[in-house]
């Protein structure tokens, strides 16, 4: 790394300013790292944000759905990919896995909403937290049973699934003087694509319109003749499906990987992003993902270079969450009246 930097500085005639090059390369590293993390964060949080925005339900089972998505995606990949499968075919199978997992979890989410969430809409928000938390316990344990039954370790990452990524993604590329894993660039692309897809869904489709209207004023929306209950089912399903898509992406990432603890890990990230972004604002979720990704990357850099405290990035993220709740409880782009309801 250091040798590369020196060679690069010599090549572009900046030997007399080594400090400046270090700084720019440090910034480029943090920016790229931050973007790849932000892409994952927005994948993790967007489903949670849609549900929270429309229905006001903080779905504690979101992380578990991501974890299930990671395992399901892993199953598709491990079953179909052999050691001879070429890189492009693997990518194609990956997109198939995303489509399959999105479909399966959308159906699951819609069924969950119809059976157990619907009866408690009129109760205190506390009960929705409690109920979805119960779902976490059941889903995590069910996955643990199945994973153990297949002879895998539920606590550690599923290495076979990570191994199905094509070689082109595990090699390192040189971008702006920084070497970055191909997978992280791929994650940035997928993250951007999903954000674009959700944006188009919200602004260009009928259900997107219902969601935006329902987030602003559910009663008025209903009075205008829109079946908001059906919209709830659809949105809960789509939110669960998006959680699954995030899971499929994380299944390839060696920093995460398919494991049962992935559920809680991603749930906490989702909470941070949704709360910072603000209730009912998809724009807020995207900005908050960038903010959280940037914070995580910066703090990782600070930890690696200055402060010998391994938990620093995670801790600072929670400090940011607490800080935002204190200063601006409605989040960056949320409506002002929430927070004290």
């Amino acid at each position, binding site marked *: 790394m250091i040798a590369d930097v020196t060679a690069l500085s010599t090549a572009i005639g900046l030997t007399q300013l080594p400090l400046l090059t270090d700084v720019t390369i440090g910034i480029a590293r943090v920016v790229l790292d931050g973007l790849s993390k932000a892409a994952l964060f927005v994948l993790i949080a967007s489903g949670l944000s849609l549900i929270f925005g429309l229905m*006001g339900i*903080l779905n504690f089972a979101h992380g578990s759905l991501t974890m299930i998505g990671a395992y399901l995606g892993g199953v598709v990949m491990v079953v179909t990919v052999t050691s001879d499968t070429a890189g492009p075919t693997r990518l194609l199978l990956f997109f198939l896995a995303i489509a399959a997992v999105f479909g399966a979890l959308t159906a699951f989410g819609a069924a969950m909403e119809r059976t*157990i969430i619907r*009866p*408690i809409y009129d*109760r*205190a*928000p*506390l*009960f929705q*937290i*409690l*109920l979805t*938390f*119960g*779902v*976490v*316990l*059941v889903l*995590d*344990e*069910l996955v643990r*049973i199945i994973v*153990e*039954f297949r002879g895998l370790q539920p606590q550690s990452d599923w290495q076979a699934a990570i191994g199905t990524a094509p070689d082109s993604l595990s090699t390192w590329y040189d971008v702006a003087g920084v070497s970055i894993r191909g997978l992280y660039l791929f994650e940035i692309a997928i993250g951007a694509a999903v954000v674009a897809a959700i944006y188009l869904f919200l602004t260009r489709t009928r259900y997107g319109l219902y969601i935006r209207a329902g987030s602003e004023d559910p009663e008025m929306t209903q009075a205008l003749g829109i079946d908001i209950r059906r919209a709830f089912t659809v949105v809960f399903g789509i939110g669960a499906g998006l959680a699954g898509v995030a899971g499929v992406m994380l299944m390839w990432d060696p920093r995460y990987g398919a494991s049962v603890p992935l559920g*809680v890990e991603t749930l*906490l990230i989702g*909470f941070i992003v949704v*709360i910072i972004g603000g209730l009912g604002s998809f724009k807020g979720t995207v900005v908050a993902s960038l903010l959280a990704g940037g914070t995580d990357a910066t703090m990782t850099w600070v930890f690696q270079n200055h402060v010998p*405290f*391994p*938990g620093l990035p*995670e*801790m600072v993220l*929670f*400090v940011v*969450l*607490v800080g935002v*709740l*204190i200063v601006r*409880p409605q989040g960056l782009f949320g409506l002002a009246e*929430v*927070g*004290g*309801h």
Partner: protein
Amino acid sequence: MDPTDDRPTESVDKTHDRRGAPIDRPTSARDTALRYAETHISHVAVVFAFVLYPVVYSFLLGTPLGDEFAVLLPRIRTMIAVLYLGLFAMSFDFISGYTGYLSFGHAMFYGTGAYLVVMAANGKLPIVSPETPFFVLLLVAAALAGVLALAVGAVSFRLSGVYFAMITLGFAEVLHVFIQNWDRVSDNPRDGAAVTSPDGFELGVPGIDGLTFEIGRLVGDSVENAFGLGIDLSSAELSYYLIGAVVLVCYFALQRIIHSPFGRVLIAIRENEERARAVGYHTFFYKMGAFAIAGAFAAIAGGLYAGYRRSVAPESTFDLFVTADALLASIIGGFGTLAGPLYGHLFHETLSGILSTDSDGLARYLRETIPQSVLEAELVGIEVLRLVNVLIDGRAELYLGMIFILFVLFVPRGLLGSVRDRLGGTVSEVVAMRVRQWRKNR
């Protein structure tokens, strides 16, 4: 804030209440004492049941059905966990069930208490020396957690509902990550720390040597022929009684607070905070007080846990799932009932015990008693033995999660709450009323 404000104004007619029903006032000092005793009949009965449990347990294990009882009944060691985790769940219920503010980071107070005890015993803390008596450590832990609760509450009580749950969770996670990486805890803070000294923590009547005993797994004292009554107590039984005594004192303290004017205001906040404020209560200070009290008792529970287990780990103290245990216990036992969470936790531990992988779990029992031919037979294409291993062995969380969901959906008041609904009052009140009627009619 004048404390006398809390009292209801005395009506002019002192023999009838506002609705015109005659007020039944005590007629003499003896009557007052009797009435006081009546209201505590159910408490005495419960305490008696807990005190007798070890005796009954060892008796039942000696009967011909001993193996079956060993599977179904929680062990004394498990009952100790019921006590300290039950206290933790009660402290959680105190703030969440009574004020309606869900303290989703409650594990931070439990963890503070637990880490304070272990780190103090290892001499890792300033001011608190390793020689400090255990009950003083518990008090220090309570005070520290109370201060922590005030600091967290000062900013958190500006929010409510889901946002309050989130901000307390945020604080707890900050501390969770911190404790996982704080190298002062031990060489490997991710795995927690253990007490290095071989001596157990002492509990008992302070100042009297003969009535002070060491608690703890493996290191606790045992007593032969206690008080010359011919009662032998194993170390687990002795720890059970000593920790039970602390939990009992804490329960009565919490119950006393709930039944005080202060506690009534907490319930008013839960039912309608705006109205409570309109009536003139500065609800912020009541919430802060309640949070500090709940934090302090959670720390005592954490201290008892550390004192008995003699080691702490981040995932068993500061973790979100520790709060979740209290949440489960509160919902199953009855949210806003104070005693309910203890029963809820008893239910939790009993189920975990039955489904545990230990020697007196159901799975091992089935493997030993079901004939080999049945175990090897196939049910829906899978070997019965494998089904037992996968579906029963250590699977308490799965069934508990399902039961929890069913409770949230269909029994939102919990076990004790439903009993109270049916009786039309708390158990102790109803029992007292029945006894009083029986005394009158005699």
